[in-house]
């Protein structure tokens, strides 16, 4: 028994070493434990094709950034790799808002764990001119990124932008690096992306490569997501959806490249108040409209956030230890109140 455990450890160590040399995550594709391919994990149609990856991911539970949408996380086998280069594509320059928005939502998720670390957004002058410069007020309002946490680097030439990105990718003092490039420049080839990927792996920080108006081409990034904007649902009010209003930002995500996932499309909605993604599906919207509970979003950005509704009960359950609070128990019944507290009577 002991021998097998030791042997398994050795195998794991060797596999990890090989992975380090190759610069990839080790993977052994196998069906999810305890589930046959037929019944799936119950995450919808198409989940029967979901494959769980074992290996380093199992050894390092922190290797992935869960997006928070069950179906997408399952397709990506746990989320986006944290220590890697991830490509986020937009088909046209006018999609820059959606592409940047999706990347910043991911950064916002990262900042939940790495509080206070700055992020660096590198772009060429061309893209900042074409697609607009990041606006700190909007970033703060939508993604909770403080202006003091933001660093921008604008390079007139692509070479310089790549150099800054490479230098930044190996910084552990940055929460994330965003590199934004337009089109398919020759210089951003397999070698350049491999260099970025290797540095990101070394530092353990994500590098998001935003590519506006670019054709997919071979790169070293393990994951490529293609982002487009999706029509937003109307704002939810107590009296139902407000007609003609524009609610939370929504994105259509397609997996363009992934080791594990099959191509698929997801419509995600970013909730700026709770700072998390929700997947939008037709029937779910209807349910939500009927159920008035989550209409008012919970307070955000506070030290002691309010518990999600459902956990807090107005009337404690019978037999619960905190059924009656001590303060309430110490209250004397109304009849025994002090005389000076009782309402005065004339006479």
């Amino acid at each position, binding site marked *: 028994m002991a021998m097998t455990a030791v042997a398994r450890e050795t195998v794991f160590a060797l596999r990890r070493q090989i992975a380090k040399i190759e610069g990839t995550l080790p993977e052994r594709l196998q069906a999810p434990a305890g589930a046959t391919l037929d019944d799936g994990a119950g995450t919808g149609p198409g989940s029967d094709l979901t494959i769980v990856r074992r290996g380093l991911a199992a050894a390092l539970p922190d290797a992935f950034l869960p997006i928070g949408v069950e179906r997408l996380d399952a397709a990506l086998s746990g989320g986006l790799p944290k220590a890697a280069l991830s490509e986020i594509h937009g088909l046209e320059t006018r999609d820059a808002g959606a592409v940047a928005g999706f990347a910043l939502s991911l950064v916002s998720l990262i900042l939940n764990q790495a509080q206070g670390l700055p992020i660096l957004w590198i772009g060429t002058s061309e893209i900042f001119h074409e697609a607009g410069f990041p606006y700190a*007020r909007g970033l703060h*309002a*939508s993604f909770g990124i403080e202006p003091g946490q933001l660093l921008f680097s604008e390079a007139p030439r692509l070479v310089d932008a790549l150099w800054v990105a490479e230098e930044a990718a190996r*910084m552990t003092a940055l929460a994330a690096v965003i590199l934004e490039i337009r089109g398919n420049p020759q210089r951003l080839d397999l070698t350049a992306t491999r260099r970025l990927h290797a540095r990101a792996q070394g530092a353990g920080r994500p590098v998001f490569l935003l590519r506006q108006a670019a054709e997919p081409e071979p790169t070293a990034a393990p994951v490529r997501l293609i982002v*487009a904007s999706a029509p937003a649902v109307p704002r939810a009010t107590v009296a139902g959806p407000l007609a003609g209003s524009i609610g939370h930002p929504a994105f259509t995500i397609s997996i363009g490249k992934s080791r594990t996932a099959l191509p698929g499309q997801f419509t995600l909605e970013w909730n700026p108040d709770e700072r998390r993604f929700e997947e939008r599906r037709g029937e779910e919207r209807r349910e939500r409209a009927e159920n008035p509970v989550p209409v008012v979003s919970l307070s955000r950005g506070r030290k002691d956030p309010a518990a999600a509704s459902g956990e807090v009960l107005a009337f404690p359950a019978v037999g619960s230890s905190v059924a009656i609070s001590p303060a309430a128990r110490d209250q004397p019944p109304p009849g025994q109140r002090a005389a000076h507290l009782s309402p005065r009577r004339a006479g």
Partner: protein
Amino acid sequence: MISHRQGNAQRILALDERAEALHLKRDMGIADARAMHPSIDIVEADPEADRRLLEGLADWCDRYTPLVALDSIDGLFLDVTGCTHLFGGERAMLDEILSRFFHQGFDVRAGLAGTPGAAWAAARFCGDRIVVSGEEEALLAPLPLAALRIAPETRTSLESVGLRTAGAVMAAPRAPLARRFGATLLLRLDQALGRLDEAISPRLPVAPLSVERHLAEPVTLTEEIERLVGMLATTLKTDLERRGEGARTLALLLFRVDGAVSRIALGTSRPMREPLLIRKLFHERLAALEQQIDAGYGFDLVRLSVLAVAAFDMQQADLTGEAADDGADIALFVDRIRARLGEGAVLQPVPVESHLPERAVAIVPFTEAPRRTTPPKRPDKMQAPKTIFPPERPIRLFRAPEPVDVPATEMPEGPPLHFRWRRALYRVTRAEGPERIAAEWWREVPSDPAASTRDYFRIEDADGRRYWLYRQGLYGGVSQIPPRWFMHGVFA
């Protein structure tokens, strides 16, 4: 021969020895000179180029002393106080300067004296003379009045009363001189004789600290220069440690064998004294400047100066040897980027109290952004929103709002139905707004308040993209200019 225009005539400004041999003189008319010698070569004076040359020479003279000042258009003052022993005494230093200039092709005269005035007179009227302190009077006495650095009018009037040499002026009673010729004459005289101090105004501020290395064999390779920087920085470190300071601005001066001087300066975002880091910064800077620095025959003097210093806070490291300072990594990283790509390579947004969207955030270089040294006491209170529902703001803002063509709106004050932006037609499916933002009257008074008023709309097009459009101006305003539409930003 060099000519310049003075008044209405072209006159000779300067001339060489062969022209002098032809009995030509300064201030002679060009027409006369041509009449005498039709074959002379005349070049138009170029004061700008002369000035540049003189500044280049002054740069080169930095190798002898940090205090180099320009003297009118054709002279340099070098304050060599305390520097001569480095070159083996006054005579040796003067000889070296003269021979180096001679080999560079310049005809130079020099004088060395205890006062600038005496040195000036010695250089121009005696040539290569070293005046020992106290001998100024003996030097000046036989010299003409021009040696006193006085205005030509004063000189003419002094000559008209029979005072033709500096000695004669010195012998004359002072009070009548001052009354008749002004205080400047006596001031110049006293300065030359050392009775009054005269300070020369150096071109460049003197570095608080600088270290240099003279090389027997000139270096040309960038790697060698970097290694030298590392060595110089190591020397610098002990000085900085003794002073308890760190460098904020550093300059590397490379003196080329043939006289050209390259000056490479860089700033750091926090005080620095670590030789390895200084070397790293210069590595980036040199890599960026590779095209501009021409090593030529090599550099024979390398100097590293600290131009600005700041107090250096020692950080206590923990037991693992790592100082708990998150900002240091970022600052160093930014320094390296700045060294390579320039001051504005790394930017940071700073919120500004303004309701105009483009003014509400200022983008400043990283080093100029205010640093929050201590975390705010109550972050909840600091970030309290002004309104319960803060206005929606886009995540990207165009630097200059882009004009949008709007063919029709449903109602004059409402959102557009279609719009054309960058030659593409967009169909508006939903719109929120307007949010009216007026110009800030306390900054500038607009000629027509209505014309600069903006109505912002959040607009979603048929594909689900969300934009921030605004209409500038109001319908039916005082001015007859119709309102125009602009694209100002995009939402997520």
